[in-house]
């Protein structure tokens, strides 16, 4: 399901893709969103960079989707 990036409003085709985009930009406002959710940007980055599977992206994607619905 498509959704907008909660920081810059860019339209992304699904939650995981939106998570990817937010990690990718890595700028202060996008990073700040992670911290505001009580997440550690670096810990998530680490997980994505070292563990097979897309756990970090999927988790963040779910969070974004939830926030959009709410």
């Amino acid at each position, binding site marked *: 399901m498509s959704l907008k990036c909660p920081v810059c409003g860019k339209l992304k085709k699904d939650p995981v893709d939106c998570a990817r985009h937010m990690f990718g930009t890595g700028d202060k406002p996008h990073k700040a969103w992670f911290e505001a959710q009580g997440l550690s940007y670096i810990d998530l980055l680490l997980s994505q*960079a070292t563990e097979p599977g897309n756990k970090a992206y999927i988790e963040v994607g779910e969070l974004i989707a939830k926030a959009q619905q709410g």
Partner: protein
Amino acid sequence: MTANKYSVLNTRVHNVDGYAKVTGRATYTFDVKLPGMLYGKILRSPHPHARIISIDPTEALKLPGVRAVVTGKDTLGVKQGIWRRYPELCDEQILTIEKVRYIGEPVAAVAAITEEIAEQALDLIDVQYEVLPFVDDPMEAIKKEAPMIHEGVERNVNVTRHIEWGDVEEAFEEAEYVREDWFKLGGQAHMCMETRATVASYTSDKKLTVYTSTQSPYYHQALLAGVLGLRESDIRVIAHYVGGGFGGKFELDASQFCASILSMKLSKPVKIVFTREEDFVATKRRTPMYYYVRTGVKKDGTFCAREARVFSNGGAYTGMGATALYLTGFFHSFPYKWKAYRYDGYRVYTNSLPSTSMRGFGAPQAMFCSEQQIDWIAADLGLDIIEIRRKNAHTSGYEVPGQATIASCGLTQCLDKIEQWIKDRGKLPKNRVIGISAAGFMTGGIFNWFDTPYSFSSAVVTINYDGVVELHVGAQDIGQGSNTTLAMICAEALGVKLENIKVHSGDTDHCPADLGAWGSRQTLMAGNATKMAAEDAKKQLLEFASAKFGYNIVYDVDIKDGWVYNVARPERGMHYVDLVKEALRGKDGQRIVGRGHYTPHRKGMISPAYSYMVQAVEAEIDAETGKISLHNCVTAHDCGQPINTLGLIGQLEGAASMAAGYGYLENMPVEDGKVMNPNLVDYKIIRAPDMPECEIIEIDTYEPEGPYGAKEAGEGLTNPTAAALGNAIFHATGLKMKQAPIMPEMIVNAFKEKKKEGGTP
């Protein structure tokens, strides 16, 4: 291959230092002995992370024969680093004062009348430590609860680097096939045959002479000035022969620093030579990295997008690690055209030996990941491994967006040659398989991170009465043959025979400043400086010739093979030596002096030129035992114009031996901050029986930025081998090796896993 149009270039000549080396007359720092010389030894931290409470040298000083003990408190305490332009990256005191950050870090140094006594004295120095919690893996070091290794550096993140072009998300949308993989790249020891060594001699007229095993006498002169509070010009660095460098000998190391400090205290020469164990444990190594790569391509193999993340194990200090972090991300895109690319690199401090530059400079790690993944993608899509590369290959004129413009590029020809070689090889013997890898590399760097006010390379050519040419360069010969290569360029440019050239290098008192031997820069940069100096001298000579001959102004005069002649009527002329004699008189007895220099300007973000290559490795893999044997290593290679023929062959074969080591031999496990195999029994270097025959197929290109069209050869060649070997294993067994070096246990385990899962790749 086109016929050689040059007199000297690309001919087989004896290395100008060859006679000294084959007769045992070459004296290295290892051999230097000065009158009154003392021997130094270094006391090293047994802890990976600890505060130094106190150091008491009293008992050590009582030992007969001991002359001095120094600690960090006897120094200016300067935090130095080779990235002088960025003070926050200058983080290493060498003789550390407040705390130790890796096992083996120097805490004190002793000078005594014999090496044995100095060694005994170490045990008598009483050091009180407050042991601190340590962390030796970057993934742990970056966590919130990890101990802080450097004051104020949050999450131990030392350096970050980011490279991006195109719209990565969009490009991934366009991709019809996406693959992501995770890799773990190990470190590697430089393992120079001559360990770190220095003889420092300070005299009370405030002058310091330093014999040291270095890749850059100028760097060491400047770095020592910075930490010792001396004037640069009052320090003389001498390095006539150096027993290997490979990227580990252009930063300040403890042998130079401690020997200098001790010598300054005693006004006596002090010699420090690292044992092989010290050389393994307490120098800097190739940067270990965690790599995440996600790649999107079209079904026909067109590359669309790539996204990569790297966490590198920085060890305790920055060193050249910042550069390795950038270059790995840059070369991870090589040698292909990507519509969109994103790289994020994070270098993390850990309590282990620092990591730095090593031949290849982050590119071998990058290629191991990229080139293997490309083969896996090709396999997934049923595409040919050469065709997929050809489709996306760099071409001359291509602009790597925001990073570099590729001038000369022989990559496509390299692919053609390897494709042909594989075809010609035909049916392989049983159990043998071929794996390939492409690569491209820089020819010297453009960044002035050292913050030098000097030209990157300089040269002076002086012509004596007898026609012999004194060539003074700051470029350092560490075995790669730069003395010979530059002599050849000088001879070619001047038009004389190689025997006429005398090369002077390795002495800051007599040679111009030069950034030294690293990043494969010297043939291009010092070569350009040498060519300019030789042409300057030649021009002056030709002025005399023109005046003497009195030819019609439309005629040109030139010098070739020692003959000065009218280009239109070559039989008309005179011998070069006779011209020199006359020119001298015309200059009031002054010798002809030519000067040259080179600094890259407006050449992008990385390098003035790029070499290209494609390598095929033929290997035998025993999936039951994990044993690997290499049988053939063929490289199609574009280095522009080859200069030193024997040197080039040597560089290619040598690079392959080092790269093969990275591929399957040189495991360097570090546990709890401790190097587990710091000796030549347990750390495996390839030996003669295991080295495959290497074949070179030179591709003819011309690099406009290089002297006579030359660009680098020797460092780029360490990039492809580990990846090619990984690809060989993949094609033989279907196993995807995601860790380098590839140890036998990994193959055996992967094979077992595959069997468990039901077998098919």
